[in-house]
């Protein structure tokens, strides 16, 4: 039996719809430390609105089309054996 309470962040849209974000989803979405500056540059505002449990709302991230395809390559890759010396 689960003995610990479950917590989730809940955001709400203009129509009153709730969006429940469990801790597991938030953990998966944690950005790499080296990405902090890049994320900050993409946020429209740097105001932090306190939510709960130590979290703040940092803003809406907009990813430009060129960044969406920044890692795209037409060069294919496929698993094979390594070259032996």
């Amino acid at each position, binding site marked *: 039996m689960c003995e610990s309470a479950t917590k989730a962040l809940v955001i709400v849209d203009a129509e009153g719809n709730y969006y429940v974000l469990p801790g*597991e*989803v938030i953990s*998966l*979405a944690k*950005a*790499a430390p080296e*990405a902090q500056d*890049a*994320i900050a540059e993409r946020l429209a505002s740097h105001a932090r609105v306190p939510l709960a449990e130590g979290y703040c709302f940092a803003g809406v*991230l907009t*990813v430009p089309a060129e*960044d*969406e*395809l*920044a*890692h*795209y*390559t*037409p*060069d*294919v*890759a*496929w*698993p*094979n*054996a*390594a*070259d*032996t010396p």
Partner: protein
Amino acid sequence: MRAAQRALAAEGFVCVPGLWGRELADGLAAEASACRPHARIPANGPRTPVTARRRGTPAANGPLLARLHLGLTGTARALSGRLLVPTFAAYGYYEGDDAVYLHTDTAQCDLTLLTTACGEVGPLHVHPELAGRTMAELGSLESDPSWDRASGTPVRYPATGIVALAGHRIPHHRPGRPAPGLNAVAALCYRALY
């Protein structure tokens, strides 16, 4: 979709059938077959250090596969809960047998979507229990005659859908069996932007 999200998060892989119809499946099969003459052993990709090499697996790509790749970006993000971007997509060709060395995918593949493009291949065997092993360690296992090649969890690719796999994290292989004719797997890879 929620059940698939949970399974992917918990196990590192999930099968999602029924994402497209017969027309697209037929289109992928036709493109994979048409691209076979242009396929080459690619310069990039995971390279398992093994003591006994089998035949190499050539790969190619095509415009329909590229469109599917971009079109499934939202599905990839919804499944993983991460801000993924597309990296590369390819057809890999298996003629004679369908074996794949034990490996993890490159860093371009935080999420790998796999489907059968044409013909038929056996199930992929995924190994959550080997997560964290290096390619050298996986190569040692692959080269060990006593290693159970039937080990792992077998996952069959759906005909009109995908197997989503945390490819850079979860080792996987296909034991290999006779595979007459032309058989092609399509792989669509995505990496987390942040």
